[in-house]
C-alpha cells in the first residue's frame, strides 16, 4: 500500500542522515555516531570531503552575497538546507540586506526540527518540511506564502542537493517546475557533485558515492553538460558553470584542490 503524502516515514536515527553527515564534515556536533561512522567511511576514499564541503559552503556565502548585493535580491528559498552549523543563508543575507527573507526547505524531519529551533524568534526566516521532487507542495506551503512574494525576484538555492535526486525522479522537471513559478530577475544558485574537472578523484569518488548508496541516499555524479541543463530557461551569470572554487573567488590564495571538485553556477531568469 502506498503511504499517503501526509504521513512521513518514521524517524530512525540509527540510519545515517545526509544532513547530519554534512554537519559533521563542517565540524559540527549535530550528529550521531551512525552519521560519523558513515562520514568517516566516506573519508577513507576521499579524505578531502570536509574541504569540499567547506568550498561548497564558501561558494554559498559568495553567491548569497552576490545575490543580495549585486542583484538586489531580498528573498531566498534554500531547498535542501540541512543542519548548517555556520554561514547560514539567513545570516549571510540578512547581514548584507537587513530584513531579507529566507525560507529553508528540507525533507529530513530532524533537520527541519533543528532549523525551527535555530530560527525561533527570527521573523524573517522559516523552515518547511517538503521534498524537492514535489515543487508544488513547496510553493504552496504556508512559510513560502507568508514570507515570499513570488511576483518579485527570488534567489532559489539548490546547493549540494540535486546530486541526491536520481534521474528516475526527474530532477529536471522539478527544477523547471520551480523556475516557472519565479518572477523575472530571479536567480538559481546551484552546486552539484561532479568529477568533471577533477578526473583524478573519480576512482576514489566512486567509493565515497558507495557510502551514500549504502545509506539509501545515492550520490549521483553528473557531467558539466548535465548540470548546465538545470539552467534551462536561465541566463548564466558569469563565469557560468565552473568548479566551485572558480566561481567569483574573493581571494587568489584559495588553492585547496578540493575546492575544484564539484560544479557551481548561478543563472538569472529573463
Amino acid at each position, binding site marked *: *500500500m502506498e503511504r*499517503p503524502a*501526509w*504521513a*512521513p*516515514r*518514521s*524517524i530512525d*536515527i540509527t540510519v545515517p542522515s545526509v544532513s*547530519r553527515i554534512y554537519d559533521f564534515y*563542517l*565540524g*559540527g*556536533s*549535530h*550528529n*550521531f555516531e551512525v552519521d560519523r561512522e558513515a562520514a568517516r567511511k566516506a573519508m577513507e576514499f576521499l579524505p578531502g570531503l*570536509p*574541504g569540499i564541503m*567547506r568550498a561548497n*559552503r*564558501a561558494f*554559498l*556565502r559568495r553567491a548569497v552575497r552576490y545575490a543580495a548585493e549585486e542583484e538586489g535580491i531580498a528573498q531566498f528559498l534554500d531547498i535542501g538546507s540541512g*543542519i548548517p*552549523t*555556520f*554561514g547560514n543563508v539567513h545570516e549571510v543575507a540578512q547581514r548584507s540586506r537587513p530584513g531579507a527573507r529566507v525560507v529553508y526547505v528540507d525533507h529530513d*524531519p*530532524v*533537520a*527541519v*526540527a*533543528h532549523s*525551527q*529551533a535555530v530560527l525561533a524568534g527570527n521573523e524573517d526566516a522559516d523552515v518547511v518540511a517538503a521534498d524537492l521532487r514535489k515543487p508544488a507542495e513547496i510553493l504552496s506551503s504556508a512559510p513560502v506564502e507568508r514570507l515570499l512574494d513570488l511576483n518579485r525576484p527570488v534567489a532559489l538555492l539548490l546547493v549540494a542537493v540535486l546530486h541526491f535526486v536520481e534521474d528516475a525522479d526527474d530532477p529536471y522537471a522539478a527544477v523547471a517546475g520551480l523556475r516557472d513559478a519565479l518572477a523575472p530577475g530571479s536567480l538559481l544558485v546551484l552546486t552539484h557533485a561532479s568529477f568533471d574537472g577533477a578526473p583524478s578523484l573519480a576512482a576514489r569518488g566512486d567509493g565515497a558515492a558507495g557510502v551514500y548508496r549504502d545509506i539509501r541516499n545515492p550520490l549521483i555524479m553528473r557531467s558539466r553538460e548535465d548540470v548546465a541543463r538545470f539552467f534551462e530557461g536561465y541566463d548564466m551569470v558569469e563565469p557560468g558553470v565552473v568548479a566551485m572554487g572558480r566561481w567569483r573567488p*574573493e*581571494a587568489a*590564495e*584559495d588553492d*585547496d584542490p578540493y575546492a575544484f571538485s564539484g560544479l557551481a553556477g548561478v543563472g538569472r531568469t529573463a
Partner: protein
Amino acid sequence: MTAEPGGPEDRLRRFATIWSRAVYPVASTSSTRPEFERELLPLARRLREVLRARGFDAPEARAVGAALVDAHCTDPDTLARTLDCVDAYLVLYCAEEGDPEHLRARSARLQHAVAAGFAAALRERTLAEQEAIAQAALKAQGVVAEALHASEARFRAVFEGAAIGIGIADLEGNILQVNGALTRMFGLSDTGLRARRVRDWTHPDDAPQTWRLHDELVRGEREHYHVEKAFYRPDGTVLWTNLTVSLLRDADGSPQYQLALMEDTTERRLLNLRLRYEATHDALTGLPNRSFFFERLEKALAAGPGHRFGLCYLDLDGFKTVNDSLGHAAGDRLLVEVADRLQACATAPGEMVARLGGDEFVALTAGPDTGPGVDALATRIMNALLAPISVDGRELTVRGSIGVVEGPAGERSPAEVLRSADITMYRAKSAGGNRYELADPEADARVITRHGLTTALPAALERGEFFIEYQPLVHLGDGGVRGAEALVRWLHPQHGVLGPDRFIPLAEHTGLIVPLGRWVLEQSVRQARTWRERYGTGGAPAPLRINVNLSPCQLTHPGLVRDTVEILERAGVEPDALCLEVTESALIGADDDLLKPLRRLAEMGVDIALDDFGTGYSNLANLRRLPVSILKLDRSFTQSMQRFPADPVDLKIVEGIVALAHSLDLTVTVEGVETGAQAEQLRVLGCDTAQGWYYARPGPPERLHDLALVDATA
C-alpha cells in the same frame, strides 16, 4: 589603523597572518583566508597582552581558546596548529622586551590556558549541539508520530466506516483483519471470520479461473485480480460479491499480505435475475413470453446445416366465449391450466412452450430430426386438452386449433415461420377447429396474396385502379339489347386485371365494399344516362337499363336508399333505368327490416333482380314476399343445356321456374348463354332476357354502344 612597518602593530599582524595560514586549512569556516585573518587579529592582540602583562591572566588566555571555538575552529588540529604557532612566533613577534626565560615560561602557561579554554568551549559546544540535535530528533519523532497517528486514525476510520467489506490475510491465507462491513456481509463475528482461512471460502459457483488467479497473486506473479464470487454464509444463504484482491508488498517489494475488497452484489444480482425473468416470462402463466420465444426461435433458425425446427402454434377455439360468459378471471384460470398442461407436453431437451398473448401458445422443438417429433408434440397437445378443465366448479371443454410448421434451419426468418404457423392455424380453425394442420406453402401463398390484396384495396380505390365492364342483356324475343350488367374490375399494378371474385369478398370483409359499391353505382348510373341521351328517345324498343350488383354488406348499410336516390338524381336518371341485383343467399331468412330498403327502392321504380337463383335455398314460397321483379337463373342451368340433347329433367325444371316466375309477374333472365341453340331453347322455354358470351363478353361501354346501334338499325 595604520601599521608602521617593523613597528609593534605590523609585527602583530604578521603573527596573525602566520596563525591564520596555519589554521585556515583545518578551520570550518566559509570565510576567506584574509577574512579569517581579520577574525584572528583581535585574538592575537589579546594573546600579546597576556604575554606582556605583569601578572599572568589565565582567564583571558582561556577566553582566547574559547573564542577559537566560536570562530568554528572545532577541529582539534586547529588547537595543535594554534599552539605550534604561539609557541614558535608569539614571543618572537609580540614580546618587545623582557627576560626571554620569563617570556618563554609565560608563553608556555599561556598555551596551557588557551588549550584548557579551547577544550572547555569545545566540550560545551559539543554538548550543546548534541543536545540540540537530540532535541530536534525527539521533536521530529513527535511530529512524525503525530502525523502517523493522525494518518492511521484516518485509515482506521476509512477501514471501519467503509461500506465495502475489507479483509487482510497473509500469504498462507490466515485472515488477519476484517472490517465491520465484511462481518455484516458474512453474518459472522470478527473472530468467526478470522478463524477461517482464505482457502475455506470455496463455492460451487466459483469461476474456473478464480483460484488460479488467487494462486498467482500469493506467488507474487500478479498484483491484483477482480472476480465475481459467491460465498456461503453460516446460515447457508449465499453472498454474491464483486471481489478485488490486491497483493501488498513490503518495503523491499516482497509479497507480504493479500488485501480483499468486496462489494455485496447479492441483492443486485437477485434483482437482475428477477428483471431478466420478468422480461422473458408471462406474468399470468409463468411461461416464457413472446420475446423469450423469439430469442429461442431465432437461435433455432440460426443453427447450422443439419439442424431442423418444429413449431406448433395453438389458438384455443371459442376462448372468447369463455371470457364473455364467465368473465376474465375465469378465462385467466383456464389459461393457467392450459399453460400447465402444455408445459407438461414439452419436457424433452430442445423443447419449449411459450405464451404469445391472449389464448395463443406456441411449442417449439429443435434438433436434427424434428419431423416426427413435432407431429408427436402436436398430438400430445391435442390430447392434453381432451380432459375438461374445471373452472369455478364448471367443467369446461377446451379445444384448440394448431398450425404446425417444420423445416430446416437457416431458410426462413422467425417472422416468416410464425406467419406460416399462424396461417396454418387459421386453416385448422376454418376447417372446424379441434385439429392440427401442417403448413402448406401454396396455401400460405394464397393467404399471403389475399392479405396483400386486402391491404391494397383502399389505396386502389383512391388511385382509380378500378374500372367497369358491361355485359349486354338481350331480349330473347326480338334479340334487341335491353341493357347491361355492370361488372367491376381491378387493374392491379402487379397482378393485372382481377375479376370481382378475387376482391369483392375481401372488400366485403373489410367494409370497403360500401364505398366501392357506391363508386360502381355512380359510374354505372352515369353510363346509363349517356346511353339514354344517345338513343333513349330514338327508335329503340325499350330504354337501356343498367344492372348493378349489390353485396349483402351494402344491403344492410343504412345509407343504401339515400345514396341510391342521390346518385340517380345527381345524374338525372329515372329510377327505372336501374336494376339492383341481389343474391338469393343474401336474402335467405331476410326479415322485414332488411327488406324495407329494397321495398322503398322498388316502390320508386328501381328494379330488383334476384341473382344466382337456383343455387341457394330457392325458397319458392318466399318469392312472394320479396320486392323483386326479375329472377336471374344461375348459369348452372344453362351449362347443363350445352350438352346435346339437353337433359329433359333440367328442361322441365327451367320450364317450371319460368312458369312460376311468370305467374308471380316476374321476368326471367338467364346467364351464361354461349350458343345459339341454347338461346333458342331458352327462348322456347319462355325466358325473357339473356346474357352470355353468345351475345357479348363483358367489355367497355362503347362496345355496347355499337351493339345497340346494330340492334337499332337491324
